[in-house]
């Protein structure tokens, strides 16, 4: 069955979520991935949005993390002080999803500026809650399409810290969470090496070769000794994505 890169990325992200986990959800593919997981292997996944909606069961695809459909029928709505203090800083969030205009060799993310901060070539939105999600979620999953521009050796600005900064580990910097343990791209899954914190190639999508992945990052990409092969989306995954979760293809664009 044919499928698009977005469909596979979303399916791979969904498979990373264990039943019962508490997930801090972003809009777009992460939202689709969480709802796909809820409808397949993880019916007790608890979805939390930084807007304050807990246990949301959106009956339409939300366009923002503050969509009214995330409130109607949710388990709890709380203020944002509670979201950041009682849930995130408290260590209750098991998985956080992050993306970035730039992802570097150690999983540091940039969503702030391309170029210099004072005189940027491109001004991006900034952190939102990403800095603290990267610091506090017990683990984070990064979802981003491969390209040498998106995966430079070093980001222009560290908005959300990864595994290591200027030779110092995130643990040494005092961050409670495990950091970006996996980066889910459109061609492969990268993982943070436990010893060095460097992103290394861990699993290839069907039909993708190592060299193709290496060309998409701005540093010499190392590989795990044994590369896993990712299964293509199942018929169930594709049917849910196409018919139930995003029939208008608002997010499954590519």
């Amino acid at each position, binding site marked *: 069955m044919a499928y698009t890169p977005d469909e596979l990325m979303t399916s791979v992200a969904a498979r990373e979520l264990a039943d019962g986990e508490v997930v801090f959800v972003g809009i777009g593919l992460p939202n689709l991935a969480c709802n796909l997981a809820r409808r397949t292997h993880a019916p007790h996944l608890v979805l939390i949005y930084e807007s304050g909606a807990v246990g949301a069961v959106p009956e339409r695809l939300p366009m923002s993390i*503050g969509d009214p459909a995330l409130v109607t029928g949710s388990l709890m709505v709380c*203020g944002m002080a509670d979201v950041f203090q009682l849930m995130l800083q408290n260590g209750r969030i098991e998985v956080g999803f992050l993306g970035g205009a730039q992802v570097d060799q150690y999983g540091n993310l940039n969503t702030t500026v391309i170029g210099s901060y004072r005189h940027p070539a491109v*001004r991006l939105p900034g*952190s939102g809650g990403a800095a603290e999600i990267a610091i506090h979620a017990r683990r984070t999953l990064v979802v981003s399409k491969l390209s040498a521009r998106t995966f430079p050796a070093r980001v222009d*600005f560290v908005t959300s810290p*990864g595994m290591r900064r200027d030779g110092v580990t995130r643990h040494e*910097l005092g961050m409670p969470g495990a950091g970006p343990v996996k980066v889910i791209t459109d061609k492969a899954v990268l993982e943070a090496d436990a010893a060095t914190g460097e992103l290394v190639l861990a699993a290839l999508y069907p039909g993708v070769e190592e060299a193709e992945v290496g060309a998409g990052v701005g540093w010499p990409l190392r590989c795990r000794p044994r590369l896993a092969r990712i299964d293509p989306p199942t018929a169930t995954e594709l049917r849910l994505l196409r018919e139930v979760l995003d029939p208008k293809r608002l997010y499954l664009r590519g």
Partner: protein
Amino acid sequence: MAESASKVMSMRDAVARFVRDGDIVVIEGFTHLICFAAGHEIIRQGRRDLTLCRLTPDLIYDQMIAAGCARKLVFSWAGNPGVGSLHAFRRAVEGKHAPPLELEEYSHFGMVARFSAGAARLPFWPLRDYMGTDLPRVNPRIQSVTCPYTGERLATVPALNPDVTIIHAQRADADGNTQIWGLVGVQKEAAFASARVIVVVEQLVDETVIRSDPNRTAIPGMIVDAVVVEPWGAHPSYAQGYYDRDNDFYLAWEAISRDPGAIERYLGEFVRGVPDRATYLAKQPGLAARLTAQPHLAGAVNYGF
């Protein structure tokens, strides 16, 4: 304090009396209940040199920046959610606009902590944040303290105490006792942090309605200076239980805001060219049919003893 009835006034009067040139201004509301009606009136009255603070500047601050109201922006995420950029903001920051907009930038948690400190009248708020990020490098107001018990260093942000905070809500009584449901964001903290508070509501209700469900009251009348009754005053943002978010307008803003001329035409037609919110709404007759909320009622609870 003071007599109840006197707080109820028009948006024009509320902005004229309580929003001044050079003020630190907060129009809060996370996606939900963003008071566009107040932002438009501030533009109409030509306020200048404002320090605009919000977690998410959203379209309303993009419009106020384009209209020349802002000297400085204090924020944590400046985008058009689910759509793309705030282009007036970007032009001001990327140097295609003069004078440049001054920025003071945090993460969401940092902004929430600033409002929390302001609301509690503490000079700072401690948080575990910013290690390994570049934010403290570009924002020297992010500092740290050492815990007297554990010796840990924790990040701090300074209190944010606005001159005026504007909160949109579903309902309030004439004294400003205000109830909000759905997403509540950081509105309570912003209101308590502020020297002056304007509450804008979909419905003015009798005090008995407020008193029937006191746990829903987010902002007590004792901290409110003005109550403005402005149905649909949050459009194109939304009010849970009243009307849906106008996602079409958020999508349309992408093209409008890319073009300074288009923004000027928009402001001319829908903001500066109308005297008030009622006229703004009259120009968009299809809104109610397209966006009015469906019923989805909460069950009742008993407050008796």
